[in-house]
Protein backbone atom coordinates (compact mmCIF):
# COMPACT_ATOMS: atom_id res chain seq x y z
CA UNK A 1 0.00 0.00 0.00
CA UNK A 2 1.86 3.00 -1.23
CA UNK A 3 1.13 6.48 0.00
CA UNK A 4 1.33 9.67 -1.94
CA UNK A 5 0.60 13.35 -1.32
CA UNK A 6 -2.62 14.89 -2.50
CA UNK A 7 -2.93 18.63 -3.04
CA UNK A 8 -6.14 19.33 -1.06
CA UNK A 9 -6.17 23.12 -0.61
CA UNK A 10 -4.65 25.61 -2.96
CA UNK A 11 -3.32 28.93 -1.74
CA UNK A 12 -6.63 30.79 -2.14
CA UNK A 13 -8.49 28.32 0.09
CA UNK A 14 -5.78 28.37 2.73
CA UNK A 15 -5.45 32.14 2.80
CA UNK A 16 -9.20 32.58 3.01
CA UNK A 17 -9.36 30.05 5.84
CA UNK A 18 -6.73 31.86 7.89
CA UNK A 19 -8.27 35.26 7.26
CA UNK A 20 -11.47 33.94 8.77
CA UNK A 21 -9.60 32.28 11.64
CA UNK A 22 -7.83 35.47 12.63
CA UNK A 23 -11.01 37.49 12.17
CA UNK A 24 -12.94 35.14 14.46
CA UNK A 25 -10.16 35.16 17.05
CA UNK A 26 -10.06 38.97 17.15
CA UNK A 27 -13.85 39.23 17.05
CA UNK A 28 -14.27 36.87 20.00
CA UNK A 29 -11.63 38.56 22.12
CA UNK A 30 -12.74 42.13 21.42
CA UNK A 31 -16.38 41.00 21.61
CA UNK A 32 -15.86 39.71 25.14
CA UNK A 33 -14.19 42.97 26.03
CA UNK A 34 -17.02 45.06 24.60
CA UNK A 35 -19.55 42.84 26.35
CA UNK A 36 -17.78 43.17 29.68
CA UNK A 37 -14.66 45.37 29.80
CA UNK A 38 -12.52 43.09 31.97
CA UNK A 39 -9.59 45.45 32.31
CA UNK A 40 -9.62 49.18 32.47
CA UNK A 41 -7.86 51.84 30.48
CA UNK A 42 -5.43 54.33 31.93
CA UNK A 43 -5.78 58.11 32.01
CA UNK A 44 -4.77 58.66 28.40
CA UNK A 45 -5.96 55.40 26.93
CA UNK A 46 -8.39 54.88 24.11
CA UNK A 47 -8.90 51.23 24.92
CA UNK A 48 -12.59 50.61 24.28
CA UNK A 49 -12.43 52.67 21.10
CA UNK A 50 -9.57 50.49 19.81
CA UNK A 51 -11.39 47.31 20.83
CA UNK A 52 -14.41 48.45 18.90
CA UNK A 53 -12.26 49.48 15.95
CA UNK A 54 -10.67 46.04 15.70
CA UNK A 55 -14.02 44.39 16.25
CA UNK A 56 -15.54 46.22 13.30
CA UNK A 57 -12.54 45.77 11.02
CA UNK A 58 -12.46 42.03 11.79
CA UNK A 59 -16.17 41.85 11.14
CA UNK A 60 -15.55 43.16 7.64
CA UNK A 61 -12.76 40.62 7.19
CA UNK A 62 -14.99 37.75 8.29
CA UNK A 63 -17.88 38.76 6.06
CA UNK A 64 -15.62 39.29 3.07
CA UNK A 65 -13.81 36.03 3.82
CA UNK A 66 -17.15 34.25 3.74
CA UNK A 67 -18.06 35.90 0.45
CA UNK A 68 -14.72 34.84 -1.02
CA UNK A 69 -15.30 31.26 0.20
CA UNK A 70 -18.74 31.21 -1.45
CA UNK A 71 -17.17 32.54 -4.64
CA UNK A 72 -14.47 29.87 -4.55
CA UNK A 73 -17.12 27.18 -4.13
CA UNK A 74 -18.66 28.17 -7.44
CA UNK A 75 -15.80 29.58 -9.41
CA UNK A 76 -12.49 28.38 -8.07
CA UNK A 77 -9.88 27.48 -10.67
CA UNK A 78 -8.72 24.75 -8.32
CA UNK A 79 -11.78 23.03 -6.84
CA UNK A 80 -15.40 24.03 -7.38
CA UNK A 81 -16.83 22.21 -4.39
CA UNK A 82 -20.34 23.63 -4.18
CA UNK A 83 -21.80 20.22 -5.02
CA UNK A 84 -20.36 18.85 -1.78
CA UNK A 85 -22.92 20.95 0.08
CA UNK A 86 -25.95 19.37 -1.61
CA UNK A 87 -28.47 19.07 1.17
CA UNK A 88 -30.49 16.05 0.01
CA UNK A 89 -27.48 13.93 -0.84
CA UNK A 90 -25.88 14.76 2.47
CA UNK A 91 -29.10 14.04 4.36
CA UNK A 92 -29.11 10.55 2.83
CA UNK A 93 -25.57 9.85 4.02
CA UNK A 94 -25.93 11.50 7.42
CA UNK A 95 -26.77 8.27 9.33
CA UNK A 96 -23.63 6.67 7.93
CA UNK A 97 -21.24 9.29 9.22
CA UNK A 98 -23.03 9.87 12.53
CA UNK A 99 -23.04 6.12 13.11
CA UNK A 100 -19.30 6.12 12.55
CA UNK A 101 -18.61 8.95 14.97
CA UNK A 102 -20.85 7.41 17.63
CA UNK A 103 -18.95 4.11 17.36
CA UNK A 104 -22.00 2.29 16.02
CA UNK A 105 -20.24 1.55 12.77
CA UNK A 106 -16.62 0.71 12.34
CA UNK A 107 -16.06 2.50 9.04
CA UNK A 108 -17.80 5.05 6.90
CA UNK A 109 -18.28 5.55 3.21
CA UNK A 110 -15.69 7.24 1.09
CA UNK A 111 -16.48 10.93 0.72
CA UNK A 112 -14.88 13.32 -1.70
CA UNK A 113 -13.77 16.37 0.27
CA UNK A 114 -16.32 16.92 3.00
CA UNK A 115 -18.33 14.25 4.73
CA UNK A 116 -22.07 15.04 5.21
CA UNK A 117 -21.59 16.14 8.81
CA UNK A 118 -18.84 18.53 7.77
CA UNK A 119 -20.85 19.90 4.87
CA UNK A 120 -23.82 20.62 7.14
CA UNK A 121 -21.62 22.15 9.82
CA UNK A 122 -19.92 24.49 7.34
CA UNK A 123 -23.20 25.44 5.70
CA UNK A 124 -24.66 26.14 9.13
CA UNK A 125 -21.70 28.17 10.28
CA UNK A 126 -21.84 30.20 7.07
CA UNK A 127 -25.47 31.04 7.73
CA UNK A 128 -24.66 31.74 11.37
CA UNK A 129 -21.93 34.18 10.36
CA UNK A 130 -24.47 35.95 8.14
CA UNK A 131 -26.90 36.04 11.08
CA UNK A 132 -24.18 37.39 13.38
CA UNK A 133 -23.25 39.99 10.78
CA UNK A 134 -26.85 41.13 10.47
CA UNK A 135 -27.44 41.33 14.22
CA UNK A 136 -24.09 43.04 14.56
CA UNK A 137 -25.02 45.60 11.92
CA UNK A 138 -28.34 46.20 13.66
CA UNK A 139 -26.64 47.18 16.92
CA UNK A 140 -23.89 49.08 15.13
CA UNK A 141 -24.44 52.76 14.63
CA UNK A 142 -22.38 53.64 11.61
CA UNK A 143 -22.09 53.31 7.87
CA UNK A 144 -21.44 49.77 6.68
CA UNK A 145 -18.83 49.74 3.90
CA UNK A 146 -19.04 53.51 4.11
CA UNK A 147 -22.40 53.69 2.37
CA UNK A 148 -25.11 51.85 4.27
CA UNK A 149 -26.52 53.60 7.34
CA UNK A 150 -26.75 50.54 9.60
CA UNK A 151 -29.02 51.92 12.32
CA UNK A 152 -31.72 52.60 9.72
CA UNK A 153 -31.08 49.84 7.21
CA UNK A 154 -31.04 47.07 9.82
CA UNK A 155 -33.83 48.39 12.02
CA UNK A 156 -35.96 45.52 10.75
CA UNK A 157 -33.64 43.04 12.44
CA UNK A 158 -34.35 44.69 15.79
CA UNK A 159 -38.07 44.72 15.05
CA UNK A 160 -37.94 41.04 14.10
CA UNK A 161 -36.06 39.98 17.22
CA UNK A 162 -38.12 42.14 19.57
CA UNK A 163 -35.94 45.15 20.24
CA UNK A 164 -32.31 46.07 20.29
CA UNK A 165 -31.54 44.56 23.68
CA UNK A 166 -32.68 41.19 22.34
CA UNK A 167 -30.62 41.66 19.19
CA UNK A 168 -27.59 42.07 21.45
CA UNK A 169 -28.37 38.82 23.23
CA UNK A 170 -28.75 36.98 19.91
CA UNK A 171 -25.49 38.44 18.69
CA UNK A 172 -23.76 37.35 21.89
CA UNK A 173 -25.23 33.85 21.86
CA UNK A 174 -24.35 33.28 18.20
CA UNK A 175 -20.75 34.10 19.16
CA UNK A 176 -20.89 31.22 21.62
CA UNK A 177 -22.13 28.89 18.89
CA UNK A 178 -19.19 29.97 16.74
CA UNK A 179 -16.80 29.30 19.63
CA UNK A 180 -18.30 25.84 20.06
CA UNK A 181 -17.99 25.23 16.33
CA UNK A 182 -14.31 26.19 16.42
CA UNK A 183 -13.73 23.82 19.34
CA UNK A 184 -15.42 20.88 17.62
CA UNK A 185 -13.80 21.73 14.27
CA UNK A 186 -10.28 21.67 15.73
CA UNK A 187 -11.02 18.49 17.65
CA UNK A 188 -12.35 16.78 14.54
CA UNK A 189 -9.28 17.66 12.51
CA UNK A 190 -7.01 16.34 15.27
CA UNK A 191 -9.19 13.22 15.49
CA UNK A 192 -8.99 12.64 11.75
CA UNK A 193 -5.24 13.12 11.81
CA UNK A 194 -4.91 10.60 14.64
CA UNK A 195 -7.27 8.03 13.17
CA UNK A 196 -6.70 8.42 9.45
CA UNK A 197 -2.96 9.33 9.67
CA UNK A 198 -3.49 11.56 6.65
CA UNK A 199 -2.01 14.87 7.88
CA UNK A 200 -5.40 16.60 7.91
CA UNK A 201 -4.33 18.92 10.72
CA UNK A 202 -1.37 20.41 8.88
CA UNK A 203 -3.00 20.29 5.44
CA UNK A 204 -4.62 23.69 5.94
CA UNK A 205 -1.11 25.14 6.32
CA UNK A 206 0.79 23.09 3.76
CA UNK A 207 -2.06 22.28 1.41
CA UNK A 208 -1.14 18.60 1.24
CA UNK A 209 -2.85 15.55 2.66
CA UNK A 210 -1.60 12.02 2.57
CA UNK A 211 -3.56 9.98 0.13
CA UNK A 212 -3.65 6.27 0.71
CA UNK A 213 -3.31 4.56 -2.60
CA UNK A 214 -4.71 1.13 -2.97
CA UNK A 215 -2.56 -0.83 -5.37
Amino acid at each position, binding site marked *: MAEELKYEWNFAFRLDHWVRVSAIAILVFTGFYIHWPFFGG*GPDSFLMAWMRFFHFVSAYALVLGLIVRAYLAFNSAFDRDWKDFGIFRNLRDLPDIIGYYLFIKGTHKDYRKYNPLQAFAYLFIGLLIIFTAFTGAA*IYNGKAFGVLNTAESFMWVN*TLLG*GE*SYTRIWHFLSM*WVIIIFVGVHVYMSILQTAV*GKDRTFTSILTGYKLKKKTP
Partner: protein
Amino acid sequence: MEKKDGVGKQFLEALEFQGIKRRDFLKFCGATAAFLGLSDLYIPKIARAIEKASKRQPVVWLNFASDSGCTESLIKATYPNAAEIVLDILSVDYNETIMAAAGKQAEEILEKSKKDGGYILIIEGGIPTKKGHGMISGKEMIDILKDFSGPAVAILAVGSCATFGGVPSAKPNPSEIVGVTEALKRVGVNKPVINLDLCPVNVEYLIGVVVNYLLLGKLPELDSFGRPKMFYGQCIHDNCERRAHFDAGRFVEQFGSNEEALGYCLYKMGCKGPMTYSACPKILYNDRISWCIKAGAPFIGCAEHGWPDKFAGFYERLPDVKIPGIAGVEATADKIGAIAGVATAAGIAVHAIATAASGRAKGEKKGGEE
Protein backbone atom coordinates in the same frame (compact mmCIF):
# COMPACT_ATOMS: atom_id res chain seq x y z
CA MET B 1 -39.53 95.63 15.34
CA GLU B 2 -43.05 94.44 15.27
CA LYS B 3 -42.95 94.04 11.53
CA LYS B 4 -39.71 92.08 11.64
CA ASP B 5 -41.03 89.23 13.71
CA GLY B 6 -44.58 89.76 12.54
CA VAL B 7 -46.22 89.04 15.85
CA GLY B 8 -49.32 91.11 16.51
CA LYS B 9 -49.41 93.71 19.24
CA GLN B 10 -52.49 92.26 20.81
CA PHE B 11 -50.91 88.88 21.23
CA LEU B 12 -47.80 90.35 22.78
CA GLU B 13 -49.94 92.30 25.20
CA ALA B 14 -51.72 89.12 26.14
CA LEU B 15 -48.38 87.50 26.84
CA GLU B 16 -47.24 90.54 28.81
CA PHE B 17 -50.35 90.18 30.91
CA GLN B 18 -49.26 86.67 31.81
CA GLY B 19 -45.82 87.92 32.78
CA ILE B 20 -44.04 86.84 29.63
CA LYS B 21 -41.97 89.49 27.90
CA ARG B 22 -41.82 89.66 24.11
CA ARG B 23 -38.10 89.05 24.31
CA ASP B 24 -38.63 85.82 26.31
CA PHE B 25 -41.26 84.68 23.88
CA LEU B 26 -38.97 85.16 20.90
CA LYS B 27 -36.14 83.48 22.78
CA PHE B 28 -38.40 80.49 23.26
CA CYS B 29 -39.26 80.54 19.54
CA GLY B 30 -35.53 80.62 18.78
CA ALA B 31 -34.85 77.66 21.03
CA THR B 32 -37.72 75.75 19.45
CA ALA B 33 -36.33 76.46 15.99
CA ALA B 34 -32.93 75.24 17.16
CA PHE B 35 -34.09 71.89 18.39
CA LEU B 36 -36.36 71.38 15.42
CA GLY B 37 -33.25 71.82 13.33
CA LEU B 38 -34.59 74.88 11.51
CA SER B 39 -32.66 78.02 10.65
CA ASP B 40 -33.31 81.24 12.54
CA LEU B 41 -35.30 82.47 9.56
CA TYR B 42 -38.05 80.28 10.96
CA ILE B 43 -38.25 82.12 14.28
CA PRO B 44 -40.83 84.68 13.09
CA LYS B 45 -42.77 81.89 11.41
CA ILE B 46 -42.84 79.93 14.66
CA ALA B 47 -43.95 83.02 16.52
CA ARG B 48 -46.75 83.60 14.02
CA ALA B 49 -47.79 79.95 14.09
CA ILE B 50 -48.11 80.06 17.87
CA GLU B 51 -50.01 83.33 17.66
CA LYS B 52 -52.37 81.83 15.16
CA ALA B 53 -52.75 78.79 17.37
CA SER B 54 -53.59 81.00 20.32
CA LYS B 55 -56.86 81.66 18.65
CA ARG B 56 -57.92 78.23 17.65
CA GLN B 57 -55.87 75.18 18.49
CA PRO B 58 -57.61 73.27 21.25
CA VAL B 59 -55.94 70.39 23.05
CA VAL B 60 -57.58 67.57 24.93
CA TRP B 61 -55.38 65.74 27.39
CA LEU B 62 -56.73 62.37 28.51
CA ASN B 63 -55.34 60.41 31.43
CA PHE B 64 -55.54 56.63 31.44
CA ALA B 65 -53.58 53.99 33.33
CA SER B 66 -50.51 55.85 34.54
CA ASP B 67 -49.06 57.66 37.55
CA SER B 68 -49.61 61.11 35.96
CA GLY B 69 -45.85 61.49 35.85
CA CYS B 70 -46.02 63.12 32.43
CA THR B 71 -48.41 65.76 33.76
CA GLU B 72 -45.97 66.27 36.63
CA SER B 73 -43.16 66.64 34.15
CA LEU B 74 -45.27 69.24 32.36
CA ILE B 75 -46.29 71.37 35.32
CA LYS B 76 -43.24 71.15 37.55
CA ALA B 77 -41.61 74.30 36.29
CA THR B 78 -39.90 76.97 38.32
CA TYR B 79 -41.22 79.89 36.31
CA PRO B 80 -43.48 80.31 33.29
CA ASN B 81 -41.45 78.08 31.04
CA ALA B 82 -41.80 77.02 27.46
CA ALA B 83 -44.33 74.35 28.31
CA GLU B 84 -46.66 76.72 30.05
CA ILE B 85 -46.42 79.32 27.33
CA VAL B 86 -47.37 76.94 24.58
CA LEU B 87 -49.97 75.04 26.47
CA ASP B 88 -51.65 78.20 27.74
CA ILE B 89 -51.70 79.42 24.19
CA LEU B 90 -52.98 76.11 22.96
CA SER B 91 -56.02 76.28 25.20
CA VAL B 92 -55.92 72.95 26.92
CA ASP B 93 -59.63 72.36 27.05
CA TYR B 94 -59.47 69.32 29.21
CA ASN B 95 -56.84 67.89 31.52
CA GLU B 96 -58.26 65.99 34.46
CA THR B 97 -55.23 66.38 36.63
CA ILE B 98 -54.73 70.12 36.50
CA MET B 99 -58.05 71.62 35.38
CA ALA B 100 -60.12 73.66 37.81
CA ALA B 101 -63.44 72.20 36.76
CA ALA B 102 -64.53 68.85 38.16
CA GLY B 103 -67.31 66.31 37.94
CA LYS B 104 -70.20 67.09 35.68
CA GLN B 105 -68.78 70.45 34.65
CA ALA B 106 -65.58 68.80 33.44
CA GLU B 107 -67.49 66.15 31.54
CA GLU B 108 -69.49 68.88 29.79
CA ILE B 109 -66.31 70.58 28.62
CA LEU B 110 -65.06 67.27 27.32
CA GLU B 111 -68.27 66.59 25.42
CA LYS B 112 -68.17 70.05 23.90
CA SER B 113 -64.59 69.54 22.72
CA LYS B 114 -65.57 66.30 21.13
CA LYS B 115 -68.46 67.94 19.31
CA ASP B 116 -66.30 70.83 18.07
CA GLY B 117 -63.53 68.48 16.96
CA GLY B 118 -60.24 69.63 15.45
CA TYR B 119 -58.27 69.24 18.68
CA ILE B 120 -54.89 67.71 19.27
CA LEU B 121 -55.47 64.63 21.37
CA ILE B 122 -52.76 64.01 23.93
CA ILE B 123 -52.93 60.69 25.70
CA GLU B 124 -51.13 59.89 28.90
CA GLY B 125 -51.22 56.35 30.26
CA GLY B 126 -51.76 52.83 28.97
CA ILE B 127 -55.10 51.40 27.93
CA PRO B 128 -56.49 48.45 29.93
CA THR B 129 -58.12 46.00 27.54
CA LYS B 130 -59.61 43.71 30.17
CA LYS B 131 -63.22 44.68 30.82
CA GLY B 132 -63.80 46.60 34.05
CA HIS B 133 -60.12 47.16 34.79
CA GLY B 134 -59.97 50.82 33.78
CA MET B 135 -63.04 53.02 33.84
CA ILE B 136 -63.75 56.74 34.10
CA SER B 137 -67.26 57.80 35.12
CA GLY B 138 -68.67 54.44 34.11
CA LYS B 139 -67.02 54.25 30.71
CA GLU B 140 -64.29 51.89 29.64
CA MET B 141 -61.02 53.73 28.94
CA ILE B 142 -60.67 52.01 25.58
CA ASP B 143 -64.14 53.27 24.55
CA ILE B 144 -63.29 56.81 25.64
CA LEU B 145 -60.15 56.60 23.52
CA LYS B 146 -62.14 55.35 20.55
CA ASP B 147 -64.71 58.17 20.88
CA PHE B 148 -62.10 60.90 21.08
CA SER B 149 -59.71 59.62 18.44
CA GLY B 150 -62.23 60.25 15.67
CA PRO B 151 -62.51 64.08 15.69
CA ALA B 152 -58.83 64.63 16.63
CA VAL B 153 -56.48 66.24 14.08
CA ALA B 154 -53.49 64.49 15.62
CA ILE B 155 -53.00 61.87 18.30
CA LEU B 156 -50.00 62.12 20.55
CA ALA B 157 -49.20 59.26 22.92
CA VAL B 158 -46.95 60.76 25.58
CA GLY B 159 -44.83 58.72 27.96
CA SER B 160 -43.97 55.03 27.90
CA CYS B 161 -47.38 53.93 29.24
CA ALA B 162 -49.26 55.50 26.36
CA THR B 163 -46.81 54.48 23.65
CA PHE B 164 -46.30 50.77 24.26
CA GLY B 165 -47.78 50.09 27.69
CA GLY B 166 -44.74 50.94 29.78
CA VAL B 167 -44.65 50.13 33.50
CA PRO B 168 -48.35 49.25 33.88
CA SER B 169 -48.00 46.68 31.09
CA ALA B 170 -45.01 44.98 32.71
CA LYS B 171 -45.30 41.33 33.67
CA PRO B 172 -47.71 39.91 34.76
CA ASN B 173 -49.93 42.71 33.40
CA PRO B 174 -53.24 41.62 35.01
CA SER B 175 -55.25 44.38 33.30
CA GLU B 176 -53.82 43.50 29.88
CA ILE B 177 -52.68 47.05 29.33
CA VAL B 178 -51.50 48.05 25.85
CA GLY B 179 -50.27 51.24 24.24
CA VAL B 180 -52.43 53.65 22.26
CA THR B 181 -51.38 52.37 18.84
CA GLU B 182 -52.26 48.79 19.76
CA ALA B 183 -55.51 49.83 21.48
CA LEU B 184 -56.67 51.81 18.43
CA LYS B 185 -55.85 48.84 16.23
CA ARG B 186 -58.04 46.64 18.41
CA VAL B 187 -61.06 48.93 18.22
CA GLY B 188 -60.59 49.32 14.49
CA VAL B 189 -59.49 52.95 14.33
CA ASN B 190 -56.87 53.50 11.67
CA LYS B 191 -55.16 56.76 12.56
CA PRO B 192 -51.48 57.56 12.85
CA VAL B 193 -50.24 57.97 16.41
CA ILE B 194 -47.15 59.95 17.29
CA ASN B 195 -45.35 58.07 20.02
CA LEU B 196 -43.38 60.21 22.43
CA ASP B 197 -41.67 57.52 24.41
CA LEU B 198 -39.78 58.23 27.66
CA CYS B 199 -40.79 57.91 31.27
CA PRO B 200 -41.93 60.59 31.90
CA VAL B 201 -42.19 62.35 28.57
CA ASN B 202 -39.81 65.21 27.94
CA VAL B 203 -41.99 68.30 27.66
CA GLU B 204 -39.62 69.81 25.13
CA TYR B 205 -40.39 66.91 22.79
CA LEU B 206 -44.10 67.46 23.21
CA ILE B 207 -43.77 71.14 22.40
CA GLY B 208 -41.48 70.36 19.49
CA VAL B 209 -44.06 68.11 17.87
CA VAL B 210 -46.96 70.47 18.54
CA VAL B 211 -45.09 73.49 17.16
CA ASN B 212 -43.93 71.44 14.20
CA TYR B 213 -47.56 70.65 13.49
CA LEU B 214 -48.72 74.27 13.89
CA LEU B 215 -45.90 75.54 11.73
CA LEU B 216 -45.95 73.09 8.85
CA GLY B 217 -49.47 71.73 9.19
CA LYS B 218 -48.24 68.15 9.14
CA LEU B 219 -46.93 65.49 11.45
CA PRO B 220 -43.18 65.05 11.80
CA GLU B 221 -41.34 62.20 10.10
CA LEU B 222 -41.66 59.06 12.20
CA ASP B 223 -39.47 55.99 12.63
CA SER B 224 -40.75 52.40 12.54
CA PHE B 225 -42.02 52.70 16.13
CA GLY B 226 -43.97 55.87 15.35
CA ARG B 227 -41.51 58.14 17.13
CA PRO B 228 -40.47 61.46 15.58
CA LYS B 229 -37.05 60.98 14.00
CA MET B 230 -35.94 64.43 15.08
CA PHE B 231 -35.99 63.36 18.73
CA TYR B 232 -35.46 59.62 18.52
CA GLY B 233 -33.01 59.50 15.63
CA GLN B 234 -29.76 59.39 17.57
CA CYS B 235 -28.37 56.92 20.03
CA ILE B 236 -28.04 58.16 23.62
CA HIS B 237 -24.63 56.53 23.81
CA ASP B 238 -23.32 58.59 20.89
CA ASN B 239 -24.19 61.88 22.54
CA CYS B 240 -23.46 60.92 26.12
CA GLU B 241 -21.30 63.27 28.16
CA ARG B 242 -19.49 60.22 29.60
CA ARG B 243 -18.67 58.74 26.20
CA ALA B 244 -15.01 59.67 26.51
CA HIS B 245 -14.74 57.42 29.58
CA PHE B 246 -16.35 54.59 27.63
CA ASP B 247 -13.92 54.92 24.75
CA ALA B 248 -11.02 55.05 27.17
CA GLY B 249 -12.20 51.92 28.95
CA ARG B 250 -12.84 53.66 32.28
CA PHE B 251 -15.87 52.21 34.02
CA VAL B 252 -17.72 52.43 37.31
CA GLU B 253 -17.63 48.97 38.93
CA GLN B 254 -19.52 49.76 42.08
CA PHE B 255 -21.70 52.53 43.40
CA GLY B 256 -20.01 54.59 46.09
CA SER B 257 -16.58 53.93 44.60
CA ASN B 258 -13.95 56.43 43.61
CA GLU B 259 -14.67 55.69 39.94
CA GLU B 260 -18.24 56.77 40.44
CA ALA B 261 -17.14 60.00 42.09
CA LEU B 262 -14.94 60.67 39.07
CA GLY B 263 -17.92 60.31 36.78
CA TYR B 264 -16.70 57.29 34.79
CA CYS B 265 -18.90 55.46 32.29
CA LEU B 266 -21.86 53.53 33.74
CA TYR B 267 -21.78 50.78 31.08
CA LYS B 268 -20.94 48.05 33.57
CA MET B 269 -23.61 49.29 35.95
CA GLY B 270 -26.21 48.31 33.38
CA CYS B 271 -26.55 51.53 31.39
CA LYS B 272 -28.86 50.89 28.43
CA GLY B 273 -27.66 54.01 26.60
CA PRO B 274 -26.02 52.02 23.77
CA MET B 275 -29.38 50.51 22.79
CA THR B 276 -31.62 53.51 23.32
CA TYR B 277 -32.45 56.23 20.85
CA SER B 278 -33.43 59.61 22.24
CA ALA B 279 -32.14 63.16 22.42
CA CYS B 280 -32.01 63.19 26.25
CA PRO B 281 -28.30 64.10 26.47
CA LYS B 282 -28.91 67.16 24.30
CA ILE B 283 -32.27 68.46 25.47
CA LEU B 284 -32.19 67.35 29.13
CA TYR B 285 -35.05 67.46 31.63
CA ASN B 286 -36.55 69.88 34.13
CA ASP B 287 -35.92 73.19 32.39
CA ARG B 288 -32.88 71.62 30.75
CA ILE B 289 -31.05 71.18 34.02
CA SER B 290 -30.20 67.50 34.14
CA TRP B 291 -30.96 63.97 33.03
CA CYS B 292 -30.39 60.51 34.48
CA ILE B 293 -26.77 59.98 33.50
CA LYS B 294 -25.81 63.49 34.50
CA ALA B 295 -27.41 62.71 37.87
CA GLY B 296 -25.20 59.60 38.11
CA ALA B 297 -27.70 56.84 37.33
CA PRO B 298 -27.37 54.37 34.47
CA PHE B 299 -29.90 54.89 31.73
CA ILE B 300 -32.67 52.30 31.99
CA GLY B 301 -33.86 52.38 28.38
CA CYS B 302 -37.25 54.07 28.93
CA ALA B 303 -37.29 55.52 25.40
CA GLU B 304 -37.54 52.11 23.77
CA HIS B 305 -40.21 49.72 22.65
CA GLY B 306 -40.69 46.88 25.13
CA TRP B 307 -39.51 48.82 28.15
CA PRO B 308 -39.36 47.87 31.01
CA ASP B 309 -39.62 44.08 30.58
CA LYS B 310 -37.01 43.80 27.87
CA PHE B 311 -34.60 46.08 29.72
CA ALA B 312 -34.75 44.63 33.22
CA GLY B 313 -32.69 44.31 35.42
CA PHE B 314 -31.79 47.90 35.23
CA TYR B 315 -28.36 47.39 36.80
CA GLU B 316 -27.32 44.50 34.59
CA ARG B 317 -25.46 44.70 31.28
CA LEU B 318 -27.85 42.48 29.33
CA PRO B 319 -31.36 41.59 30.40
CA ASP B 320 -32.21 38.06 31.43
CA VAL B 321 -32.85 35.62 28.63
CA LYS B 322 -35.80 33.34 28.78
CA ILE B 323 -35.04 29.90 27.42
CA PRO B 324 -37.99 28.97 25.23
CA GLY B 325 -39.75 25.78 26.24
CA ILE B 326 -38.48 25.73 29.79
CA ALA B 327 -40.99 27.65 31.85
CA GLY B 328 -39.65 29.69 34.71
CA VAL B 329 -36.00 29.19 33.85
CA GLU B 330 -34.18 32.41 33.31
CA ALA B 331 -30.50 32.70 32.88
CA THR B 332 -28.27 35.47 31.76
CA ALA B 333 -26.68 35.26 28.34
CA ASP B 334 -23.30 34.80 29.99
CA LYS B 335 -24.42 31.71 31.85
CA ILE B 336 -26.00 30.18 28.77
CA GLY B 337 -22.83 30.71 26.80
CA ALA B 338 -20.60 29.34 29.56
CA ILE B 339 -22.79 26.27 30.11
CA ALA B 340 -22.90 25.51 26.38
CA GLY B 341 -19.13 25.96 26.19
CA VAL B 342 -18.47 23.61 29.11
CA ALA B 343 -20.92 21.04 27.71
CA THR B 344 -19.07 21.07 24.39
CA ALA B 345 -15.69 20.68 26.06
CA ALA B 346 -17.06 17.75 28.05
CA GLY B 347 -18.51 16.19 24.88
CA ILE B 348 -15.17 16.50 23.12
CA ALA B 349 -13.32 14.98 26.08
CA VAL B 350 -15.72 12.02 26.24
CA HIS B 351 -15.39 11.41 22.51
CA ALA B 352 -11.62 11.63 22.63
CA ILE B 353 -11.52 9.09 25.46
CA ALA B 354 -13.90 6.82 23.56
CA THR B 355 -11.71 7.06 20.46
CA ALA B 356 -8.66 6.11 22.44
CA ALA B 357 -10.54 3.25 24.09
CA SER B 358 -11.82 1.91 20.79
CA GLY B 359 -8.30 1.71 19.47
CA ARG B 360 -9.20 3.53 16.26
CA ALA B 361 -6.15 5.75 16.43
CA LYS B 362 -3.86 2.73 16.49
CA GLY B 363 -5.38 0.56 13.81
CA GLU B 364 -4.71 1.42 10.20
CA LYS B 365 -7.75 0.01 8.53
CA LYS B 366 -10.42 0.57 11.12
CA GLY B 367 -11.69 3.90 9.95
CA GLY B 368 -11.01 7.37 8.77
CA GLU B 369 -11.27 8.81 5.34
CA GLU B 370 -9.27 7.02 2.80
